Every structure is written in C-alpha cells, then in structure tokens.
C-alpha cells in the first residue's frame, strides 16, 4: 500500500481532467508505485469526475496497469515463441531459485515481482525480459543473476 496524498491531484493538473487524460495519469501512478490501489483509482475517478468503475474497467484491461500489489521491481520475462525456444524456462527457473518466489508472486521484502509477458519485441536477442521499463536481452542464467544483484540495493 502507498499513500495517494496529493499525487493524483498533481497528475490531474499535469495531464488535464478530460477522459483522455486517464491513461497518462494511471501510467504515471504505475511508473511511480508499480500498481494501482483502490484508493488511487477512486481518487482519479473523483478528479476526472467519472465513476470509479470506469477507472477500474479501463485499468484492468491493460496488462501493465496492475491493480494487484507489485514489488518495487517488476520483472516480466517474455514467454512468446522465440524466447520460449531459446531458453525462457531456464531463465524463469533461475529467477525463481534466486528470488524464492514463483511466477506471479512478490518477494516478502516487496523488492521484486516475477511475471511472464507476451512478446516484447526482442526476438532476435532472445531470451529477453523487462525489469520495469528496461529491456535485458540475450539472457543466460549467469547474466540474469548479475542483473538481479544490481537491483538488490
């Protein structure tokens, strides 16, 4: 959980209060906090003067607008065909062993969430994953361990 505070009001000032402001506002909240709380969505609804159901309905459509609690670093490993062919399962196994969580789970210290995702556009450098916005490609188990260590502090 995080405190919504003045954030939503500030974002509404920045992006406007029209319906088309909704996506940029939700995206900015997720960028900062990695997921949308009920409180945040209600606050957005009130700023934009639309129903909270409209906000939730829109947010829940988009994979990257998570409405469940996520860790500080969201790992999304590509599972589409080329990454799958080039060793995606080994990467997942390495991450599960290292973080002691399964796909879909968040570490108890809320530092990492491990997810799978559909094609992220790095098929020529498969397997690939995103950590937050950053792509990592040509992954090996060794490389993944180093990358994750870099996010541990």
């Amino acid at each position: 959980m995080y405190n919504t505070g003045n954030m939503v009001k500030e974002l509404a000032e920045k992006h406007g209060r029209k319906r088309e402001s909704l996506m940029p506002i939700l995206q900015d909240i997720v960028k900062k906090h990695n997921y949308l709380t009920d409180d945040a969505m209600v606050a957005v609804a009130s700023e934009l003067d639309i129903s909270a159901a409209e906000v939730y309905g829109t947010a829940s459509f988009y994979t990257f607008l998570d409405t469940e609690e996520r860790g500080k670093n969201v790992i999304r490993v590509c599972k589409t065909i080329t990454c799958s062919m080039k060793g995606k399962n080994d990467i997942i196994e390495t991450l599960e062993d290292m973080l002691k969580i399964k796909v879909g789970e968040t570490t108890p210290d809320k530092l990492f969430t491990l997810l799978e995702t559909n094609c992220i556009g790095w098929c020529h450098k498969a397997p690939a994953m995103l950590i937050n916005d950053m792509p990592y490609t040509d992954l090996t188990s060794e490389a993944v361990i180093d990358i994750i260590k870099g996010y541990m502090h």
Partner: protein
Amino acid sequence: MKKKGLSKVDLIFETIDAKVVLEKAFSMTSEEIIQQILESSLKGRGGAGFPTGLKWKYTAAEKDPEKYVICNADEGEPGTFKDREILDRASYKVYGGMAIAGRAMGAKKGYIYLRGEYRFLLPQLYLELHKFHKMIAEIGYDFSIEYRMGSGAYICGEESALFESIEGRRGEPRNKPPYPTSSGLFNKPTSINNVETLVTAMMIIAKGAQEYVKLGTKDSRGSKVFSVSGDTPVPGIFELELGMTVQEFVTEFGDGDTKAVQVGGASGFCVPRKKFADTIIGFEGVPTGGSMKLFNSSRSMYNVLHNYLEFFSEESCGQCTPCRVGCQQLLKGIEMVKKGEAKSTYLYELVKLADTMKVASKCGLGQSVGNAFKSIVENFREEVIY
C-alpha cells in the same frame, strides 16, 4: 509471376536532410503529394497492406477542419521488432513522414502511440522530437506531435482499439464502418499509419515515386524491413526488396535445416519446406508486417501453435464471442487431441471453428487466428496429433 531474388536495400535507415525533404513536400499541393504516394503503390507496412495513398486521399477529402495523423507504434506482433529499430535509429524520418501526411490531408496534429514495452526509448525520442518541432517552426509550418503510451495490450495495435486507448478507454475495437478516414480519433477524420509506412512515404517524396517503383513487383512495390528471428545464424533487422520467394529467403537466413517459416507473426501464415520455392513474400503470396520466424527440424510445430493460441487467448479483448471463446476452444481442442482425449478428426471441427472466427469476429485479431491455425494444422498434422 516474376521472381526477383533477394537484394538488400538501404532506404529506411539512409541518412537524409529532413529539412530539404520537408521544404520540398510543403512546396507541393495536397493533391501532388497524394498523387506521388498513389503512384508509388505503397501499401501499409504494418501488415494489413491497405494502400497508403488511398488512406490519405480519403482523409484529405473530408471537410472537417480538425483531422489527425497517427503513427501506430504499438508493434506487438510476435516476431516483429523493426519499428523499434526505426524509431531508435531514424525517428526524425517518422516525424517527417507524419508532417508530410499532415500536409497531404490538412491535419495539424499528430500522435504517436508507442507500446509500453518501448518506454525506455522515450528520452531519446523526445530529444529528437524537440529538434523536429524547432525545424518545423523554422520552416514556418504548423504541425505538432505528441506521444501516447500503450500499457501492454496487443489489441491496441488495431487502429480503432488504438483510438479508444488514446481516448482513455479499454482498447476494444469499434465497428466499421465508419472507417478512421471519416471518423477516427475523437470521431474526427484520421489517417493512421505504421512507423515504417510513414518513413517510406517520406523517402518516396524525397526520391520520387518513379524511382521507388523500380523496386519490387507489380503487387508489392518497393522494399520492406524484415525482422528475422528463430533458428537462424543471423537474427536481426534487414531491409530487402519485395518479391523474393521463401526459398530465397531461407537460403540467405536459414541454418541449413529450416522446416518452416512463419511469415507475418502469430497472425500470419506458416509456410512448410515443400512450399518454399513457390511462395512469394509479398501481397501476391504471403503478406507480412515484417515478422519472419524460422523453425528447424528440432522444433515441434505443436508447441509453436500452442504458444500462438495461448498468446491469442490472452490478448483477445474479449468483446466479441467468436474471438474470445474461439481462441480458448482452439487451444483446448489441440490439447485434447494431443492427449488422445479427442480423436484426430476433431481437428476438422477446429478448422471449421477457425473459419467461423474469420467470418464472425469483429476485428483483425479474431479474423486472423485461423491463418496460423490452419496453415500449421494442415501442413504439420502429424506433429499436432502425435
């Protein structure tokens, strides 16, 4: 059919003086620009292949003073990554193409809808956009571009779903007609083009349509950027003249053991080895938005199909029943056949379902699931069953 072989081209990434090209474009009338694009026979490079000149012409013909140019950078088709590369290396030409499109149809505002997976590109893209706006101001022309981000929904690459998303809604495709050229973003006349299409249009204006049509075949003029991945020693981005056969492509990019090429991504067609020589990559054969995935004999085509169907089941927006339920049933169906819970003849029923989805689905997603499904089931039946 004329066979042209394989030849590399450098048009999309070639460095040009954008200001010179834009000044040339702005000195032309709307009709002159559209005439050039029509003469070039340019077809949309996102995959659907609608003639770009016609799209611009229809939008230009609308009387509404408020119109939009949209660049579709929601590149989500599995196996496609060329738009990211184009934006990364030549975004100034994307902006230039949008300004030319704006000139042609009388639009002063452009949006680029960039998929969330490419957000890391934004700082560099904004830097280039700032330079572009400055240059446009120097020329004394009125046109501006804004970015809008996607958030991980494949369906938002469908044009009307993309409009819904920019408008702040669920990315659910609209009924057509009305088509975007008369009622698109904010219900205003809109021309929506793929990243590569816009760059190609700018190059056509730079070099002239007569020069451009020297490349390619009658049905597929010009060149195209291909995203090559899978079982290949040389994965990556390659700009090639259109008109080659799959065989010629495989000779260049295969690993010597290629048994199938998936042309056009998960929504495209699977070409088996026995059809390599007779299949042309282009609108006269197998069209593609650029995705070319090679599979060698170590790969199970059942696994490939299973992966695609999982993809579609997750990415279907769920709005229309044929697509929502169809994708899930196709996936369940091949699993049942594989496990022996259904007879192999059940595949015929599934093919009928794929045909129904083609006719009854609301948008291109559900309509094209059958492409991969049928071409894999028909050409690799044994692998799907046993």
